[in-house]
């Protein structure tokens, strides 16, 4: 992945993460705000419920107080002086008085807590009131109580008043009003809020015990079945504390309601859980706002990312341009263009890098010049050494021959003629040797530039093999076997066929020199990633690693009579073709030269088909 794309990705990711973070933060704040508002609404509703409870309780207390001070009750208290247990006269009194004072419940108890008269359950006279022990006659406030009826139970506000009778004996009045749907309907509820009451009876949740003021009749709300409250109610019953929970009515989250379940307890030392007040808040507004935030976040995020891509594309292009220039310049340097430099803009770190790069290339160029100078001096020294060595050998016989002639002229004139003839031949032979040496040096210095044309490498290889075929078989005892493995699918390349032929001939000659006792020469061609590879291997004596390193150095030779220019010429030719040559060898295991030549056909000027065909042929 390019630096520019990485920058682009980083910018886009940064924007995306930022937008996502802001959206999450907004959602979190929104949820907190809604929860806070929800808590406030719940607290307000609970306070309202308590106010209404207190108001109704006070109303009940006033009515019971009024009953306690009424004549029939006072007379009854006087009559029931603690010794009489004849309740017959007052059997129907509670019902009548309760009706007169609009109370749903009224029980008259004697001092021992026995029911004298009951408005809600007339047949229960003479029975003890179960809650009598928990009823505080000194507390004037109303309280919540679960009243047992003949075939059911009912939750209500109750108040207790004592009526002083004769002596120290008292009669107690326990009066109350039913806590029902009417009570819940009387609460002033905010929008999207509702209140339900669960009457806690039995061991398990029962939908029949749920008072929902909005539910029609006893059938309940079919769209919102009461059974959904079961987990919440059971949790409150289990832990006996306020618990909140979400009730989902449909798959639409907008229909969800958050319910706060508040336990309602009775009186006494161990107050019983009598009911559970369920205050519900619709989550529709919250869910819709959340959806809007999410949609907005998606819209803003999407737009932001597109904008970020555009801006970051521009910014990254601006940032990466000098880096790209640097990379190109570095590639140029790597490919040999040491004059590459980059434009320096500004004074930032990239500009400093560009300056450093330019200094580096300038320095490298200077060092290269110095190196070339050094190598040139070394080459001249080597050339002088070789020339001195090569010329010294023929000059010594020349000197000896001339001195021999001079000595024969002065000391033995009678055989001078014969010595002159022999010496002349020697002198001519050595002079010819000197000319040969000078010719080879001249040839090396006059290495021509390759004339590139479309060449089928296989044809050149086959021509070289044909050329040396006779020499391979010249000595029957030391015959050399020539193996060829040519890739017939090779594409033509741009090369100079004459020079290429010379290169391969040189390598084959070297191979033959390495196998004086015969052996095998292998010529192989193959294609490798668009390049053409030619291998020339032998089964000769091989080379040491040191020889491998120096074998392409001019005037270096491992042979007794070599000039050391053959492989230097080969490397020069291959290098002029844009290719490279390498050698792999081990002593005693033969040697393999590997030539890699680039295709480069595109670089050739377009030629006529006939001419191209003619150029592809190699004459040997």
């Amino acid at each position, binding site marked *: 992945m390019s630096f520019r794309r990485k920058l682009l990705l980083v910018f886009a990711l940064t924007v995306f993460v930022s937008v996502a973070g802001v959206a999450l933060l907004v959602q979190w704040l929104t949820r907190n705000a809604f929860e806070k508002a929800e808590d406030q609404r719940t607290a307000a509703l609970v306070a309202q419920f308590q106010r209404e409870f207190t108001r109704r309780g006070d109303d009940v207390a006033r009515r019971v107080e009024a009953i306690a001070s009424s004549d029939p009750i006072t007379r009854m208290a006087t009559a029931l002086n603690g010794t009489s247990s004849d*309740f*017959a006269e007052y*059997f129907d009194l509670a019902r009548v008085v309760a009706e007169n004072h609009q109370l749903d419940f009224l029980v008259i108890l004697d001092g021992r807590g026995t029911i004298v008269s009951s408005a809600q*359950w*007339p*047949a229960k*006279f*003479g*029975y003890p009131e179960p809650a009598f022990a928990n009823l505080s006659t000194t507390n004037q406030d109303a309280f919540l109580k679960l009243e047992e009826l*003949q075939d059911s139970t009912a939750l209500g506000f109750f108040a207790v008043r004592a009526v002083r009778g004769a002596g120290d004996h008292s009669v107690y009045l326990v009066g109350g009003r039913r806590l029902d749907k009417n009570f819940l309907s009387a609460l002033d509820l905010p929008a999207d809020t509702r209140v339900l009451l669960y009457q806690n009876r039995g061991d398990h949740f029962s939908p029949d015990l749920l008072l929902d003021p909005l539910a029609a009749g006893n059938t309940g709300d079919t769209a919102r079945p009461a059974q959904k409250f079961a987990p919440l109610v059971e949790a409150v019953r289990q832990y006996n504390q306020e618990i909140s929970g979400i009730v989902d009515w449909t798959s639409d989250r907008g229909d969800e309601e958050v319910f706060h379940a508040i336990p309602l307890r009775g009186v006494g030392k161990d107050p019983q859980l009598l009911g559970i007040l369920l205050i519900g808040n619709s989550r529709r507004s919250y869910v819709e706002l959340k959806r809007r935030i999410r949609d907005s976040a998606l819209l803003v995020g999407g737009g932001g990312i597109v904008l970020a891509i555009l801006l970051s594309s521009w910014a990254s292009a601006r940032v990466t341009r000098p880096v790209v220039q640097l990379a190109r310049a570095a590639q140029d340097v790597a490919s040999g263009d040491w004059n590459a430099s980059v434009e320096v803009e500004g004074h930032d770190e990239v500009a400093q890098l560009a300056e450093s790069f330019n200094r580096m290339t300038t320095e490298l160029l200077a060092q290269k010049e110095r190196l070339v100078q050094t190598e040139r001096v070394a080459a001249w020294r080597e050339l002088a050494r070789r020339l001195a060595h090569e010329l010294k050998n023929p000059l010594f016989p020349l000197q000896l021959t001339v001195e021999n002639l001079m000595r024969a002229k002065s000391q033995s004139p009678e055989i001078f003629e014969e010595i002159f003839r022999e010496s002349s031949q020697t002198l001519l032979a050595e002079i010819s040797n000197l000319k040969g040496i000078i010719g080879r040096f001249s040839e090396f210095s006059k290495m021509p530039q390759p004339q590139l044309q479309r060449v089928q490498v296989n044809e050149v290889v086959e021509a070289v093999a044909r050329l040396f075929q006779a020499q391979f078989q010249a000595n029957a005892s030391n015959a050399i076997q020539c193996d060829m493995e040519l890739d017939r699918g090779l594409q033509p390349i741009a090369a100079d066929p004459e020079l290429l032929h010379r290169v391969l001939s040189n390598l084959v000659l070297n191979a033959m020199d390495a196998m004086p006792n015969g052996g095998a020469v292998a010529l192989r061609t193959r294609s490798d990633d668009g390049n053409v590879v030619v291998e020339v291997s032998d089964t000769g004596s091989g080379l040491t690693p040191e020889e491998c390193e120096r074998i392409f150095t001019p005037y270096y030779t491992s042979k007794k009579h070599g000039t050391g220019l053959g492989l230097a010429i080969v490397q020069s030719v291959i290098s002029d073709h844009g290719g490279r040559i390498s050698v792999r060898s081990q002593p005693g295991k033969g040697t393999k030269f590997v030539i890699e030549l680039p295709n480069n056909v595109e670089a050739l000027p377009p030629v006529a088909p006939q001419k191209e065909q003619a150029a592809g042929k190699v004459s040997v």
Partner: protein
Amino acid sequence: MALVFGRDVALPDEKLLREALGLSVERGSIQSVLLQGAGQPAGSLLPTWISGFGFVFSSRADLQKARQLRGQAQTVRVSTIGYDSSDPLARLLVDRIVLNAKDAGLSLVPTAVGSTDLRLTRMPLASSDPWIALQFVEVQTGLPQPQRKDSSIEELYAAEQTALASQRIVPLFHLPVFYAASTSLKNWSLRMDGTLDLTNAWLGAAK
């Protein structure tokens, strides 16, 4: 007034439960409060003033024994108890009987309509003759009528005891018959069987 079962005892548990029900009803409280002192709690089919031995059959509630009998029963099912919906007192009486039965561990559901397992029934005495009165009760409750040999008091006692032992009927109260008469009707009285005795009655001037 009595509780009359719709059919004979078919299972041993039914006999135990019917007996428990009879023992759970507080006839005294009911007579004192709901009946406002009218009538007499009854453990016998015939009142004492007819048979002479009505007091032998106890009318007192024994909740402990009722619970014991109910505990002996292996299966207890909810029974329905019927009453006359036109009688406001009947509902109160049934409610109290249901409450008493509940104390003994029995479940009764009061209903004014349809056929029921037992029913609170007002049963007028057909005659001051004990045999006629008993026979009438037996006919009304569907009990078999025993063969009478000598109409002795022993035989009458045995007949009533047999009828009660069938657990088809649980006597509750012997109630008087009330008549309302104008204040101008003087010196009239009721006979023991509840009929008017106008032998010495006379009409005075209305005030």
